[in-house]
């Protein structure tokens, strides 16, 4: 008898662990659709997706570093550096969109390499190495313009005037919308997010490399003794993270159309939150690409819903924090109960 009822409790816990967060997400959508006028429409959906896109891309990068048991605090600053760099290349150097894109991607990859080198070779703990890199980049991106934003017609430190402009092709990355069912419906950034999410998902779950990265995150020593090149995979994870963050930064730059020094303050915390909320999705209890995408969506829907219900902007961080703590509770307390039964 008691056995039967424990089984029942266990299967209930299992159900809660697996689907609890998705049900919560669904419930939230239903609630906002009823409570906030205009929430349940295609345009609101596009707005949510667009607001989620950049955070989501960064969060997928952080997920890769979490998989190998690391952490990347520099993503936010890589994104803002990429924002400033792309603006600088086009406005001050008067180069094409292609040059800007290539340089930004290289900058992201290089940052990842340096992070990886600090962690693997110099034995700096991951949090400290990437924290240091974060400060470094936040400072570095301000030096060329003496701390000012970059826009066409600005005066440079040497007295000359910057005459370059954002190329239309580059701006299209942030502003063009594809016609899907409705005219000008699907923004480029959302398409980029979906492609990256699918790629990261496939990489982590269906390739040898993803499997080995998870092995490293779960037991680094055992992986090394099984012949896995632990150092190389750790560096790769940070390079992926850096490159994805630079893509996020370029999309932001294309949307703003200028090198805004004040943008992107919330990027780091939002994307880390999305990746951590991802632990709770489908009871994975570990970093995973699908969960991260859902986590980003969750935060996006919540904020859009609250905004449409006229909740003041200054409550947003509080709500995000509450959701994060709730998700972490879900992940760790419930899955601990599952393991201990």
């Amino acid at each position, binding site marked *: 008898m008691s056995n039967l009822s424990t089984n029942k409790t266990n299967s209930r816990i299992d159900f809660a662990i697996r689907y609890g967060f998705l049900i919560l997400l669904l419930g939230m959508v239903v609630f906002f659709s009823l409570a906030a006028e205009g929430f349940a429409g295609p345009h609101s959906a596009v707005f949510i997706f667009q607001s989620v896109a950049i955070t989501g891309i960064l969060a997928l990068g952080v997920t890769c570093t979490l998989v190998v048991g690391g952490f990347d605090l520099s993503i936010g600053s890589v994104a803002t550096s990429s924002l400033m760099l792309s603006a600088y290349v086009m406005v001050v150097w008067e180069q094409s969109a292609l040059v800007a894109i290539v340089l930004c991607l290289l900058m992201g990859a290089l940052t990842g390499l340096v992070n990886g080198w600090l962690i693997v070779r110099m034995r700096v703990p991951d949090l400290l190495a990437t924290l240091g890199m974060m400060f470094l980049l936040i400072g570095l991106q301000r030096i060329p313009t003496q701390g000012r934003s970059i826009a066409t017609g600005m005066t440079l430190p040497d007295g000359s005037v910057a005459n370059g402009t954002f190329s239309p092709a580059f701006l299209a990355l942030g502003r063009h919308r594809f016609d899907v069912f409705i005219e000008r419906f699907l923004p480029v950034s959302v398409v980029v997010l979906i492609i990256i999410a699918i790629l990261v998902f496939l990489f982590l779950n*269906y*390739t*040898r*490399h993803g*499997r*080995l990265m*998870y*092995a490293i*995150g*779960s*037991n680094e*020593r*055992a*992986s*090394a*003794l*099984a*012949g*896995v*090149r632990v150092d190389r995979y750790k560096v790769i994870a940070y390079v992926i993270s850096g490159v994805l963050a630079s893509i996020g930064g370029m999309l932001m730059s294309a949307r703003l159309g200028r090198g805004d020094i004040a943008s992107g303050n919330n990027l780091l915390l939002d994307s880390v939150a999305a990746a951590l909320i991802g632990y709770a999705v489908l009871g994975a209890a*570990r970093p995973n690409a699908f969960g991260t995408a859902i986590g980003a969506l969750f935060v996006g829907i919540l904020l859009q819903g609250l905004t449409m219900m006229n909740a003041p902007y200054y409550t947003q961080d509080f709500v995000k924090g509450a959701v994060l703590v709730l998700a972490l509770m879900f992940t760790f307390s419930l899955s601990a109960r599952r*393991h201990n039964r």
Partner: protein
Amino acid sequence: MSTALRVTGIQKSFASNRVLHGIDFDLAAGEVTVLMGANGAGKSTLVKILSGVHAHDSGLMSLFGEPFAPATPSDAMEKGVVTVHQSINEGVVPDLDIASNLLLETLASGASGFWLNRSAMRSKAAELAKTVGLHASPDTPVHELSLADRQLVSIARAMAYEPRVLILDEPTSSLSAMEADRLFDLIDSLRAQGVAILYISHRMSDIKRLADRIVSMRDGKISGVFKDAPLNLSGAVNAMLGRVVDETIISANTGQVPAISLRGITLTPGTRPFDLTVTEGEVVAITGLVGSGKSALANVLFGLAQPVTGSMQLGQQDYRPRTPGDAIAAGVFLCPRDRTSNAIVPDFNLAHNLTLPFLRKYSRFSWLNQSSEQTHSESVIQQLSVVCQSAEDNIGTLSGGNQQKIVVGRWLAEPSNVLILDEPFQGVDIQARRDIGEQLRNSAEHRATIVLVSELDEALEVADRILVLAEHTLVGEHFNHDVDMDRLLAEVASANKVMASEVTGHHSHA
């Protein structure tokens, strides 16, 4: 001489696992009692009961005639039973200076007040340091000290309690011979002051130098007490390792084709070089006490460490692996000891744990072929009779023996030139041990198999040939049809005579 600590009928179980089956022994004041026992014999559980970390289930302890049942470690220490634990860093706070370390308990208890009185601390600390022969300034941070000095610091901390019973758990495991001598002098003076000392060690040279009495433990029981001079060392080793002759009969193979040969290999500076050849189809057990160099040898064979001198040949080729990856590529596999930290990937299911080193084989252009992984895993699971629901089970749900089968099966599944297994029977029940041993022998035909074990039974059960390591060099060889047990035990117990210099290498585990 008076009895300091008397232990009668101590029993202890963890869950359903009975670790101590009624321990009886006495510690006499002014005597050094050496406690010997193989891994898993229950020594550390016993020490933890004496030092108040664990409570015993039944039995009695008395200290100088008073009942003794410490509730916490500090309770035990206040009553005068003081333990210096094996890992030096458990005994010291590396970032603080010597004075703060020595007075840590007083600081933590709050008796010293809110503000630090540096000069009072320094003079009190200097006094303590002097009693153990520690000459560094009290202001020196502990992380700048040598291992020996750190060990002295943790002993000096113990002295602050004015111990009546002092328990030293492998205190010389990281000391050089010269450093150990300083420790021995201190122990001699404590003995002269009438302190009862329980000394746990595997090092025969220490035991010879210090022991007034030897107590051997095996499988949670006292298996022998030796006190008549001269102490019967091989008797004590025999009591600790046992020699239960098993019904498993080995038809010893001696192959012809050398699979791997080592020439003039020195594992640690100052130890004697040795040669070793293992032929194809042969199963060789290498035995020796903890710290005899078994894991150091495994590390050298698997590319985790480089030999100090000497060369290795694999078949006809020179073999000098720099990383485990090199070794695996050359067909030399190592199934490491201590599966929890060295082998198991806790987040993975059985199939993913099994295929980890050979994923290249289960993927095309990096893309994993999960169904071939599945088929492969199911066949390994069946072959080794692993008890589980399916290959999709999380590895954490399996019993220790079945986890070990998975970890061994990981390496057995692919053909190899040399397969090294470091303590493959550790923490494994008898059935799993038989299954694994049988599987090892049945599959051994086309490779050299090297099994590192400290229990002689295990060596006799599985090997064609048994080699004995002591002090990081080979000291004996036996073919498994007619083993001279007395000689074997004497070799296992052989002390410093094989040492070429007084520097003992620090033995580290993979």
